[in-house]
């Protein structure tokens, strides 16, 4: 079996998982006690109207029929109407997805870009002050609730110092729409003032969201580096006169990073899950906040939509990790051929 066959098989394996997830979440939302339609339409609407709406949305059908209809709708872009906004849920999600995606990517990027060098430094200075400092930072980083870190940042940088904007994505006009991610769009349009505007808004939520992930990556890289340092080939590289920093950042880090990839894939899931909280703290107009609103209002089509999209993103992220894994480690890539 070649490596590409292996990847295709992994992709196919994801399908039943997503299918099962949709059944699960569909069932959960359809057994909601109480009456979401009544809740959505308000107490003043007559019973007949509520019934008519219920009929229109197909809510009187048996559950499995509802599911089949919903599923065929999903493939045609009809994700059902949101009880709260009245829009197609797919439309609601697509308009909000770039904001969440941007936030999660910046948080993950920040966690990786700082977590890796800090991890290398801690790992190559085991039991020195750098290592202790990183351990303490990491312990606090993973112990503080991410949403509370966000609030603390607001307390300090907005309330006390008045340096940063409290919430939202942007103060001025958004940049022309290309990807929907303001940082990228404003850079593409060369609107640097807008870029700075967007950057100051995303800084605090991304930091709050990414801090714990940074801590995890840092500790992981550290322990992998310590393990790498004991390997024969690292001693051989030193014996052949390869410079110390090349050994650290190339020869050891490649292996250390590869073994951290799985955890970075998992971290992506944690970031998405916590985006629900951090977006709420910073009034970030993303999909996760939309999801929270949907849950509070028992807007079941929207709940199903958001969960499916997040589940899909998570599965995709783990697939990307698989691909990277094979790219970075020839053993994974080549060994598949032996089967």
């Amino acid at each position: 079996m070649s490596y590409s066959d292996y990847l295709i098989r992994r992709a196919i394996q994801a399908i039943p998982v997503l299918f099962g997830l949709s059944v699960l979440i569909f069932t959960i939302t359809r057994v909601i006690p109480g009456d979401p339609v009544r809740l959505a339409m308000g107490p003043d609407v007559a019973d007949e109207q509520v019934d008519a709406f219920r009929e229109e949305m197909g809510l009187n059908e048996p559950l499995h029929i509802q599911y089949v209809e919903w599923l065929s709708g999903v493939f045609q872009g009809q994700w059902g109407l949101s009880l709260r906004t009245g829009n197609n849920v797919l439309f609601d999600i697509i308009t909000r997805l770039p904001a969440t995606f941007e936030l999660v990517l910046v948080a993950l990027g920040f966690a990786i870009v700082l977590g890796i060098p800090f991890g290398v430094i801690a790992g190559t200075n085991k039991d020195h002050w750098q290592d202790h400092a990183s351990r303490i930072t990491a312990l606090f980083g993973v112990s503080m609730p991410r949403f509370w870190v966000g609030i603390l940042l607001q307390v300090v940088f907005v309330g006390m110092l008045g340096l940063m904007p409290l919430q939202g994505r942007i103060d001025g006009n958004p940049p022309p729409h290309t990807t929907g991610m303001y940082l990228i769009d404003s850079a593409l349009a060369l609107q640097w003032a807008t870029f700075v505007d967007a950057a100051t808004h995303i800084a605090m939520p991304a930091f709050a969201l990414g801090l714990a992930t940074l801590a995890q990556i840092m500790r992981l890289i550290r322990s992998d580096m310590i393990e790498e340092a004991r390997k024969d080939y690292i001693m051989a590289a030193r014996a052949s006169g390869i410079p110390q920093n090349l050994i650290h950042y190339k020869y050891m880090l490649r292996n250390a990073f590869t073994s951290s990839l799985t955890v970075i894939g998992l971290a992506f899931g944690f970031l998405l899950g916590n985006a629900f909280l951090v977006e709420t703290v910073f009034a970030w107009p993303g999909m996760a906040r939309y999801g929270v609103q949907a849950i509070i209002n028992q807007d079941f089509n929207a709940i199903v939509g958001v969960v499916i999209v997040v589940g899909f993103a998570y599965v995709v992220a783990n697939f990307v990790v698989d691909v990277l894994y094979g790219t970075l480690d020839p053993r994974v890539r080549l060994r598949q051929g032996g089967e």
Partner: protein
Amino acid sequence: MSTDTTGATIDTDQLAKDERRERIKRAWSRLSQSTLSLVGFAMIGLLFIIAIFAPVIAPYPEDAAGAIDFSRASQAPSLEHPMGTDTEGRDILSRVIFGTRIALLMGFVVLSIAISIGVTLGLIAGYMGGKTNAVIMRITDIFLAIPPTLLALAVIAATRPSLWYAMIAIAASWWTWYARLIQGEVLSIKENEFIEASRSLGAGWFHITFREILPNAIGPITVKATLDMGFVILVGAGLAFLGLGAQEPTADWGLMIATGRAHVRTYWWIATFPGLAISFAVLGFNLVGDGLRDVLDVEVE
């Protein structure tokens, strides 16, 4: 391990037991040498003491139950109110102290449910094998495909927001790891010949479960559950923060932060101190969990 044919099973049984006891003894001596773990133990101990004696320790126990007094609303920390008061005039210190009870309750209830579900499903999957095993493991995969916070949110969507539903919702998304562990343990022990030996002596699955599988799994479960206590407290606080967990006037840390969120520019203390309490509790469990992981030498991630 002895492979003598005469009395082999009795010998190995005794040997395994001795070995386990020896391992625990050695682990404990190593644990007590680790300063950070000891600090963690002290922190958790303190949490339990605070939780148990909350009515005695708290300066204004009635505030935890929601006594409102607008005449002393939103006061900054002072000698009288070391952590200040919230917008309804309740003493934050007292509510933080009572919040310990909710947090620990949350952790214990969630993990008891999650471990029960996980162990049961893992045992069923492992023993039955075949289709049952495949179905259960597929379901586990589905649950693993969703970030834990999200699944809890979705389950809560199907219920009314309350502390107890939040616990059930979190537990419903938390059992997967334990199921996988136990299933793997059953499968590997099925292969193991010294179980073959005890089966030939007439030991049933009940005996194997409680004498072989659970004792082997207890180390990893303890480590994972200790670390999970912290995570569950975090997730629970998050749900309460979103208004999907404990409801007013319960003295819940997450809920208290939610109250403070609207006042970050003015009354910083309202959100700050409950958050410190959460961090303290999570840190304590993480320290102990990390220490246990090192000394018991188990992989849990």
